């Protein structure tokens, strides 16, 4: 029916129109296709959100009506609530072009709808639930060790992100919520492999990643915190650049050439 490249939004808008028709169009909204979820929220004020219907409207184009997968998207059997919650809350899904790498954007759905979809995807099989994060007794030291050994190779020692090849980028870790970070370790979204950490290790890691954000920077402006590449740019442009300007200023008194002296 629909091929890769066709926007999920059109599918969503079509489904919404159908919904409105069937429910008699309780209140005629200004139907801006870009505000599908908002409109949907308003049309269904008192009725509980129907996860299945929402899934069929917004996800089934690629993942299949029962989440069995199509040629445009993987099967969701057994991915669990953790995966659905991660993908939806970070706005990675729905994806407008199934060949692109899913990146963080504003979530397409409100809280209630995400919850409904997550619950519905959870019924597809026996997948991991949304993890609980408890930083009460988490260790910074163990978090640092685990982070350098497992995460820094792609996300960088400061969590700034990096290019991992295969046309994929490991995102920076400064915006993900605690639960999202934990979910990513369990789920392994995109190119990222799933990690088999214990709950304590996961908490330590989340703790360290959160720490990295507010880490004091005693050295001043951190210019990206990714080491020698920006440092080299600053050394040339700011360091040598300012000194060359000074040189031009010092060496530019042309008038004085006339009273120069001869030697030799």
């Amino acid at each position, binding site marked *: 029916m629909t091929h890769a490249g066709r926007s999920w939004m059109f599918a969503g808008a079509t489904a919404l129109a159908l919904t409105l028709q069937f429910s008699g169009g309780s209140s005629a909204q200004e139907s801006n296709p870009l505000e599908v979820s908002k409109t949907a929220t308003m049309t269904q004020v008192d009725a509980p959100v129907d996860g299945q219907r929402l899934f069929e409207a917004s996800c089934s184009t690629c993942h299949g009506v029962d989440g069995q997968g199509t040629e445009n998207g993987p099967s969701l059997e057994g991915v669990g609530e953790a995966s659905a919650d991660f993908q939806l809350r970070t706005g990675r899904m729905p994806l407008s072009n199934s060949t692109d790498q899913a990146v963080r954007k504003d979530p397409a759905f409100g809280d209630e709808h995400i919850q409904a979809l997550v619950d519905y995807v959870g019924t597809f099989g026996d997948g991991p639930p949304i993890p609980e994060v408890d930083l009460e007794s988490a260790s910074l030291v163990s978090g640092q060790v685990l982070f350098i050994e497992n995460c820094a190779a792609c996300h960088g020692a400061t969590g700034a992100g990096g290019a991992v090849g295969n*046309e994929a980028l490991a995102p920076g870790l400064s915006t993900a919520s605690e639960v999202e970070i934990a979910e990513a370790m369990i789920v392994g979204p995109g190119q990222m492999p799933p990690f088999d950490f214990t709950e304590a290790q996961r908490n330590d890691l989340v703790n360290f990643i959160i720490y990295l954000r507010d880490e004091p920077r005693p050295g001043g402006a951190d210019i990206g915190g990714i080491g020698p590449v920006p440092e080299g740019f600053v050394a040339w442009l700011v360091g040598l650049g300012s000194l060359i300007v000074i040189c031009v200023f010092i060496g530019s008194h042309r008038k004085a050439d006339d009273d120069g002296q001869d030697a030799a």
Partner: protein
Amino acid sequence: MLKWIDERLGAAHWARKGLKKVFPDHWSFLLGEIALFSFIILLLTGTYLTLFYRPDAAPVIYDGPYQPLHGREMSAAYESVLRLSYEVRAGLVMRQIHHWAALVFVASIVAHMVRVFFTGAFRKPREINWMVGVTLLVLAIGMGFTGYSLPDDLLSGTGLRIAYSAVISIPFVGPYLGFLVFGGEFPTEGIISRLFVLHVMLLPAIIIGLIVAHLAVLWRQKHTQFAGKGRAESNVVGKAFWPQQFFKSFGLMLLTGAALALLGGLVQINAVWSYGPFDASAVSAPSQPDWYVGWLEGAIRLFPAFEPTILGVTIPSMLIPAVVIPGIGFTVMALWPFIEQRVTKDRDAHHILDRPRDRPARSAIGMGGILYVTLLTIAGGNDVLALTFNVPIEAMVWFLRIGLFVIPVIGGFITYRLCTEMQESGAQPARRRRGVRLRRNAEGGFEEVSRD
């Protein structure tokens, strides 16, 4: 007092002559001085760092204020750098000024060298000083690399591992050489103290010696100058060392120190604590060397995984990018004055500088060389640039692999054409007044006014 000294050393004649030494006036002649003054800052801050740094790989337990590493086992070297950064008064700012000064030091050497190359200041009789200069550049890079390796954090250890691979990639002698230099198979306990000796004693001593030689030869041979009114091959027109040039240079020294201190105080560089202690099983991405080794890193990144076996000897893929290319590059650079003499058959002494446009072939080759090194340096940071500009890293690698052969040629060709066109267009095309003068007429329209 001065008389007392003069009577014993006969210094008055020498000093009087020295103070009257003439310095031609052009801003680009000051680039080398930036290098000299950065080096002085390096010596001063480096001395301070040496007071607190421990060149020791022995394991210790960290109990300083940086929380994530609390209780971790690490080398005494890394621990002392953390202590320098977090506990020693002014330690971090000294470390940062030192590191910024190192980056600017090598950058100013390169800028100075580019000036000397494009103006033909290396021609007879200055070939010796050119070669001293190339040696100084190599030693400065060596200083930078040894210094980069001393903190013994994850990043510097990664750099050392690459250096080790480069050494052992040399056929026949490589593995022996690797053992000799590193004192065993990487990672070794002894390498930190060896690098330390190189970094704080041997290399600075040689660099100071060569800087003295560089300046002595300059003093003896006198300055080159651009062509101009009253200037000839037989004279030098400019300011006397005392007082004019002295105060210019002294001012530049203070401003160099000020610029480096500002950078060191305001901009973080090499936050060693975030990498953690070196661990041979871990790596962080992005991992880059400092900029002046970036071209070498880039060559390694671009070179295909190609390891032919010739007559039973496997040629490791590291050999060509990490040993052969730099070897050829620096050799050609050092011998350039002689190569040019051989080609142009110009064996006369020159004290008047060339304008780059008057030697289009040399300028084109120089531009090609600069582009080549720049592309390699870009390749050295390809993962950072891929992330920053959101382009696939594979596409970038292939663009650079091909560009490495194409872009320098195109750039050289454009330079050649620009040079010849500038020659034809007159004496100072760069200072020509640009644009046309317009006058608004009574009807509200505009008309061009001829320039007089």
